[in-house]
C-alpha cells in the first residue's frame, strides 16, 4: 500500500485551505488599509505609542524567518559551489563519449564532425592517460598522484563551443611543442610550478621528463581531466596538456626507460569524443537532456562506447546536494522555527490579554467582531511584514556565518572547489514569504480568539469562564480519535513509520475533551498526554521492524510529539511543583519562590507555550550533542572496524600502482593485503544504474580478522566465514552502509541481506548478478563494495587496478613512521600512505565539525528560547504592574520582587531544560541502541559533562535575559502602580 500519495494529498489540501483562508485575510487587510482609515489608525496607534514593545514583537517574529532563510541560503551556496565545477572544470564541454578502442572513437569523431547528433555543435577527439607527476629531486621531491595527460588539438579546444572566454585557452595560440606541457593553476599551485620547470611523468612503470611551457587558468576545458575509471577521488585529476605523441612515448612501443622496480599493468589510455551544445557553461537542463538523449540514441547498442553526461551530472549533483542541505538545515531549523511560532503565539496572547479592556471598549462602542479581528489582524500583519523583511536580511547574515564555517570544514576535508556565499533573490523572497505566512496564520488565529471575547468580561478584565462542551467539539474529538486509530492500523499494516508514530498520540490527545467531561482536568489531560509520551518514547523498542531505520522527517515528528506530550504532562503536574515550593518554606527563598512559581503554575496555557518553545530547542540540542559525543568517543572502534586488522593503507596511481613486493620490502612492514579497485555501475534497490567503487580482497585481507561486517547471511557461519565466502564465491559481495547514497546525511540503506544486484563494466558491457552476503559499517576510507579479487579482475579487467594496499607494521613500530617511509620511497607510483587512525580522526573531525555547525545553527533556536523568555518577562512586568504595586504596598521588598521574577524564569527554563535533556537522551539512547543509523554495537555512554552544560548554560542565559525585566519589576513604585483617580 502506497501511503505517500494520500498523505501528500492531505497535506496539499491542508496547505490549499490555509492559502485560501490566508489569501482572503490578506485581501481584507489590504482593502481595510486602503479604504478604512479608522482601522488603519487603530492598528498603527499601538505600534507608534509603544515602539519598544513593537520592536520586541518584531524581533521575536523575525527569528523564525531568519532560520528559514538561512537554510535556503545554505542550499543556494552548496548548489552554486558544486555548479561552479561546471565553469572551472567543463566550460563548454557538455557530454563525453568514451571508448578504450582508439579506432572506434576516432571514427565516431570523424563521423560526427560532419553530422553530429541533434543539439551538438562542436566535436573533438581527446586521448588521456592517468599519470603520477613529480618535481624536484632528493628530499625536495614533490608529487601529485592523480594527474592525467590530455592530448588534444588546442586550437580546436580554444574555440570549443563557440565562446573562447569559457574554454580556458582564450589566450593560448600556439600548439604544445613535444617535450613541453601546459598545466593549470591548480596543479601549478600544488607543486609550486612555473614556466620552464621540469616535471617527471610516471605511468605503467616508465617515466619521462617534460618542461612546463605555460600555466593556464583553471577554467573550462583547461580544467577538465578525464577521470580514470578507478576509485572515487574527491578531486578530479589535474589535466596536463601535452603534444601529440607524448602518451605513446610513455606507453607505446617507443616508451621511455622503465622505472627501477614496479609492475607493468595494462595501459589505461582513454579515448573520448568531447561534445558541446554551444550553449555556454550553464546550459538549460532540458537542452542538456535533449542533447544527451540524442547522443545516447546515436551510440545505442554499441558496447564499446560509454556516454558520459558530464555537465548534466554536475548540475544535477549541484541541485540535489543543494536541496539535501536545505532539507537538513530546514529540518534541524524546523525545531527552532516551531519555537519561534510558539513565541509568536505567546506574544500575541499576551498582547491581546493586555489590550482586553481596550478591545472590550471598542466592542462596546459598536465595533463588530469581524472588524475587531481585522483591526488586530492589521496590527499583527504590520509586525509580520516587518519581521519577514528583517528576518530575510538577518537570514543572510546567519547564512554567511554558517557558510564561512562550512567552507573551512570543506577545505579541511580536502575537497576542491569554492564554497562561497550564494543568495538567490528568489531565496530571500521565499524565506520572507514562508516567515510571513507563518506569522500571518498565527496572527489570524490569535485575532480570531480575541474577537470572540465577551464585552462585559473584557471591560471588567474578568477571565473567560471554562467553555461548555458543544456537540461540534464532541464530534471533532470523536473524529480525532477515529483518525488516530485508523492511522495506527494503516501504519502497522503498511509498515509505514509516520502513521504508526502519530496514530496513538492523535487518538490520545483527541480524547482529552471527551475525558474532560467525566474526569478532573488534570487527569483528562495528564493521562492521554502520558500515553502519547510513552508511545513516542517506546515505539522503537516495541516495533523495531517498522521503526528500525528512522528517517529524518520521522525523527523531527517524534521530537515534536514527545515534547508536546511532555509539556502537557508537566503542565498538569503543578501540584507537585507547588508542594516542592512549600517544602522550601522557612528558607530565605520561600516567599520569592512561591511568588515566582505562582504565575507559571496558574497560567497553564501560556506556561505550556513557553515550556514547549524551550524544550523543543533543548531536545534537539541534546540529540545533536549526544550523537556528536558518540562519534567522538568511537574513534578506536571505528579504526578497528575500518582497518581489517592492518595499520595503514596505501593508495597509488591506477596507471602505475605500487607492487606488493615493494611494500613488503619497506622496513617495518609485517604484512600487506592488496585490494583491486574499480568503479563499475550497479543496479540495486530499484535505483537506476549508478557507479560505486568496488574492491577485490585477497587471502591476506581476510587473514587478519576484519570486523567491519555487522550483519551477514546466517548460513555463512561466523563473521570470518562471511569474508571467506565472499573471497571464494564470485556471486557474493559485502555492501557498505552508504552504498549508492548520493546525498549528505545519515546512511539510508538501499539493499538488504540476500538482495540480488547487477554489477556492470560499462566499458565492456559485461555484467554479473551478485548477492548481498553482508553489510559493512563505517566505510570511511571508501573501499566500497568488497568482493573476491577474482570477480573484480574478471569483470573489470583493464579498468581495475590493484592500487590499494593495507599494510600491517611489525610490533613496536610506529605506523606513522612507516607511512612516511612508504611515501618517500614509492613516490613514482604516487604512493599515499595514511594510517587508519589518522583517516578516522580526519573523517571524525569533519563529521564533528558539521555537528558543531548544526549545533551552532540550532543555537539560534536557543536564542529564540532565551530571548523569548526575556521578552515574555518584560511583558509580564507590564501586565502585573498593579499586583507588583500591591505586593510592594504590603511590604514585599524590591529584592523579593526581583528574585520572584528570576525564580519564575529559572522555573520555566529548568523545566524546559530537564524535559528537553531527558527526552533527548531517551531518544538518542533508543536511536543508538535500537537502530543501525550509527552502526551496531554502539555502547551508549551518557556524557554527563555535556548534558550538564546543556542544562546550565541556557538556564544561566535565561536568568541573564530576565535580569533587566526583574529589575524593572523591582523598581515599580507602589503608588504609581496602584494609582486610581481620586
Amino acid at each position, binding site marked *: 500500500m502506497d501511503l505517500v500519495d494520500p498523505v501528500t494529498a492531505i497535506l496539499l489540501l491542508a496547505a490549499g485551505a490555509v492559502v485560501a483562508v490566508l489569501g482572503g485575510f490578506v485581501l481584507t487587510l489590504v482593502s481595510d488599509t486602503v479604504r478604512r482609515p479608522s482601522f488603519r489608525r487603530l492598528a498603527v496607534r499601538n505600534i507608534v505609542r509603544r515602539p519598544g514593545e513593537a520592536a520586541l514583537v518584531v524581533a521575536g517574529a523575525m527569528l523564525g524567518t531568519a532560520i528559514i532563510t538561512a537554510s535556503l541560503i545554505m542550499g543556494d551556496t552548496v548548489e552554486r559551489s558544486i555548479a561552479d565545477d561546471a565553469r572551472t572544470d567543463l566550460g563548454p564541454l557538455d557530454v563525453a563519449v568514451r571508448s578504450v578502442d582508439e579506432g572506434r572513437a576516432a571514427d565516431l569523431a570523424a563521423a560526427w564532425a560532419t553530422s553530429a547528433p541533434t543539439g551538438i555543435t562542436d566535436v573533438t577527439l581527446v586521448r588521456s592517460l592517468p599519470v603520477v607527476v613529480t618535481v624536484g629531486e632528493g628530499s625536495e621531491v614533490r608529487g601529485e598522484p592523480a594527474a592525467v595527460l590530455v592530448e588534444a588539438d588546442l586550437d580546436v579546444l580554444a574555440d570549443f563551443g563557440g565562446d573562447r572566454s569559457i574554454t580556458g585557452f582564450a589566450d593560448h595560440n600556439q600548439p604544445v611543442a613535444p617535450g613541453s606541457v601546459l598545466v593549470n593553476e591548480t596543479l601549478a599551485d600544488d607543486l609550486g610550478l612555473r614556466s620552464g620547470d621540469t616535471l617527471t611523468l610516471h605511468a605503467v612503470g616508465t617515466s619521462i621528463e617534460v618542461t612546463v611551457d605555460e600555466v593556464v587558468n583553471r577554467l573550462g576545458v583547461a580544467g577538465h581531466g578525464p577521470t580514470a575509471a578507478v576509485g572515487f577521488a574527491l578531486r578530479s585529476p589535474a589535466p596536463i596538456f601535452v603534444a601529440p605523441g607524448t602518451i605513446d612515448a610513455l606507453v607505446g612501443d617507443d616508451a621511455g626507460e622503465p622505472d627501477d622496480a614496479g609492475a607493468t599493468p595494462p595501459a589505461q589510455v582513454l579515448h573520448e569524443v568531447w561534445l558541446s551544445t554551444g550553449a555556454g557553461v550553464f546550459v538549460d537542463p532540458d537542452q542538456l537532456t535533449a542533447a544527451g538523449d540524442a547522443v545516447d540514441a546515436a551510440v545505442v547498442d554499441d558496447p564499446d562506447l560509454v556516454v558520459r553526461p558530464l555537465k548534466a551530472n554536475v548540475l544535477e549533483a549541484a541541485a540535489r546536494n543543494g536541496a539535501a542541505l536545505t532539507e537538513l538545515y530546514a529540518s534541524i531549523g524546523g525545531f527552532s522555527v516551531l519555537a519561534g511560532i510558539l513565541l509568536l503565539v505567546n506574544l500575541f496572547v499576551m498582547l491581546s490579554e493586555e489590550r482586553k479592556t481596550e478591545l472590550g471598549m471598542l466592542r462596546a462602542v459598536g465595533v463588530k467582531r469581524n472588524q475587531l479581528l481585522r483591526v488586530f489582524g492589521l496590527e499583527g500583519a504590520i509586525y509580520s511584514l516587518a519581521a519577514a523583511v528583517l528576518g530575510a536580511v538577518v537570514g543572510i547574515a546567519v547564512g554567511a556565518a554558517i557558510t564561512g564555517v562550512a567552507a573551512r570544514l570543506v577545505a579541511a576535508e580536502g575537497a576542491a572547489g569554492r564554497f562561497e556565499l550564494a543568495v538567490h533573490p528568489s531565496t530571500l523572497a521565499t524565506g520572507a514569504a514562508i516567515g510571513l505566512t507563518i506569522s500571518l496564520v498565527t496572527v489570524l488565529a490569535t485575532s480570531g480568539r480575541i474577537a470572540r471575547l465577551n464585552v462585559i468580561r473584557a471591560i471588567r478584565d*474578568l477571565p473567560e469562564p471554562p467553555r461548555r462542551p458543544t456537540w461540534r467539539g464532541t464530534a471533532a474529538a470523536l473524529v480525532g480519535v477515529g483518525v488516530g486509530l485508523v492511522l495506527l492500523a494503516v501504519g502497522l499494516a503498511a509498515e509505514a513509520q509516520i502513521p504508526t508514530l502519530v496514530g496513538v498520540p492523535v487518538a490520545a490527545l483527541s480524547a482529552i475533551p471527551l475525558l474532560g467531561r467525566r474526569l478532573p482536568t488534570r487527569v483528562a489531560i495528564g493521562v492521554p498526554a502520558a500515553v502519547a509520551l510513552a508511545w513516542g518514547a517506546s515505539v522503537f523498542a516495541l516495533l523495531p521492524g517498522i521503526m528500525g531505520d528512522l528517517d529524518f522527517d520521522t525523527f523531527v515528528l517524534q521530537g515534536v510529539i514527545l515534547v508536546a506530550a511532555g509539556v502537557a504532562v508537566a503542565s498538569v503536574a503543578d501540584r507537585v511543583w507547588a508542594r516542592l515550593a512549600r517544602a522550601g*518554606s522557612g528558607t530565605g527563598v520561600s516567599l520569592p519562590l512561591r511568588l515566582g512559581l*505562582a504565575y507559571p503554575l496558574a497560567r497553564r496555557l501560556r506556561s505550556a507555550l513557553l515550556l514547549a518553545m524551550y524544550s523543543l530547542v533543548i531536545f534537539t540540542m541534546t540529540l545533536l550533542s549526544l550523537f556528536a559525543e558518540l562519534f567522538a568517543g568511537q574513534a578506536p572502534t571505528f579504526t578497528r572496524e575500518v582497518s581489517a586488522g592492518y595499520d595503514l593503507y596505501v593508495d597509488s596511481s591506477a596507471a602505475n600502482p605500487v607492487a606488493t613486493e615493494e611494500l613488503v620490502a619497506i622496513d617495518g612492514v609485517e604484512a600487506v593485503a592488496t585490494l583491486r579497485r574499480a568503479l563499475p555501475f550497479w543496479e540495486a534497490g530499484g535505483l537506476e544504474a549508478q557507479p560505486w567503487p568496488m574492491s577485490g580482497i585477497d587471502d591476506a585481507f581476510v587473514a587478519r580478522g576484519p570486523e567491519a561486517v555487522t550483519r551477514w547471511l546466517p548460513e555463512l557461519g561466523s563473521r570470518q566465514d562471511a569474508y571467506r565466502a565472499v573471497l571464494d564465491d564470485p556471486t557474493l559481495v559485502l555492501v557498505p552502509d552508504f552504498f549508492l547514497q548520493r546525498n549528505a546525511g545519515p546512511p539510508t540503506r538501499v539493499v538488504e541481506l540476500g538482495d540480488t544486484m547487477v554489477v556492470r563494466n560499462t566499458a565492456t558491457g559485461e555484467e554479473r548478478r551478485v548477492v548481498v552476503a553482508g553489510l559493512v559499517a563505517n566505510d570511511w576510507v571508501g573501499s566500497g563494495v568488497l568482493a573476491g579479487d577474482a570477480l573484480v579482475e574478471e569483470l573489470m579487467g583493464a579498468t581495475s587496478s590493484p592500487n590499494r594496499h593495507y599494510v600491517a607494521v611489525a610490533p613496536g613500530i610506529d605506523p606513522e613512521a612507516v607511512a612516511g617511509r612508504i611515501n618517500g620511497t614509492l613516490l613514482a607510483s604516487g604512493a599515499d600512505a595514511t594510517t587508519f587512525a589518522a583517516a578516522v580522526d580526519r573523517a571524525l573531525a569533519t563529521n564533528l565539525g558539521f555537528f558543531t555547525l548544526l549545533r551552532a545553527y540550532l543555537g539560534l533556536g536557543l536564542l529564540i528560547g532565551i530571548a523569548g523568555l526575556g521578552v515574555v518577562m518584560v511583558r509580564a512586568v507590564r501586565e502585573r504592574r*498593579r*499586583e507588583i504595586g500591591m505586593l510592594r504596598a504590603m*511590604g514585599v521588598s524590591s529584592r523579593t520582587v526581583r528574585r520572584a521574577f528570576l525564580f519564575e524564569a529559572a522555573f520555566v527554563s529548568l523545566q524546559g531544560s530537564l524535559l528537553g535533556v531527558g527526552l533527548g537522551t531517551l531518544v538518542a539512547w533508543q536511536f543508538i541502541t535500537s537502530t543501525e543509523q550509527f552502526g551496531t554495537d554502539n555502547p551508549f555512554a551518557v556524557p554527563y559533562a555535556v548534558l550538564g552544560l546543556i542544562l546550565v548554560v541556557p538556564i544561566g542565559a535565561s536568568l541573564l535575559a530576565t535580569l533587566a525585566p526583574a529589575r524593572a519589576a523591582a523598581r515599580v513604585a507602589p*503608588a504609581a502602580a*496602584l494609582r*486610581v*483617580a481620586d
Partner: protein
Amino acid sequence: MPGTAPAPPPAADTILSARDVRKVYRTGSQEVEALRDVSLDVATGDMVMVMGPSGNGKTTLLNCLAGLDDIDDGVVLVDGDDIHRMSDGARTEHRAQRMGFIFQAFNLIPVFSAVENVELPLLVGDRRPAEARRRAVEMLERVGLGDRLDHRPTELSGGEQQRVAVARALVSEPAIVWADEPTGNLDSHTAGSVLELLHEVHDSGQTLVVVTHDRGIGLSGQRLVQVRDGTVVYDGPPSEDAVDRAVSTVPG
C-alpha cells in the same frame, strides 16, 4: 473654618502625625501641586474618614501618609518613625510590620487562593508558614469566608474579594489600616456588609483611615477630614452638613 487652624503638636497616643506635607506631580514641564501643607494627627483607635470630590487629593494624601509615595516637603511620623526619611527598604519593612491596605479594586493576587492571599503579609513578616496558614484561616473565618479558603479571586464575588482584602489587611495586626474607597466597586448591600466589617474591626481597637466619597460611610466615622484642592479644609465630627459639603463638587 476649622481646618485652617494650625495643627497642635501630636499627643502621646497619636499613631500618625503629618506636618506641612506637600506633594507635586510633574509631567514634563507641567507641575500640579496635589497636596499643599497638609497637617494631620490620628490617634490610636481612631476611625478617620477622608472625603472630598474626585481629583482633590484624597488618594494622594493616603499614599503619602502611608509612605507608598514620596513627598516633596513636610514630615510624616507613623508610630513615631519619620517614614520619609527612611530608605526604601526600611520603609517597605515598616509597612510590612505596621500597616495594612484595602483598595477599591481589591488588588488580590489573582494566581493565589483566598487563604494564600491572606497569609502573604505574615510570610512577608517572616512568620512560620504553618502559623501563617492557621492565622489566615482564622481571619477568613472571622470575615465569614471560612468556606472559600481555596477559591481564587476570580471565583469569588466582589464582596467576597473585598472581605479577603480586609482579612489580608488585618491578619498581621497592623498599627494602622488604610482603606482607599473600600466599597467603591460594590453594590449598596455588599458595601453595607463590608462597612459593618470595618466597624467591627474598629470596635476591636484598630486604627483606620478610610478614603471615601460615600456619604453613608462618611457619616459612620468618628471623625471627618475634608480635602479640597490639596488642602485639609475641615477636620472634625462627621455632621450631616460637613459630609454634604465634603461630597459636594461645588466649593464652599
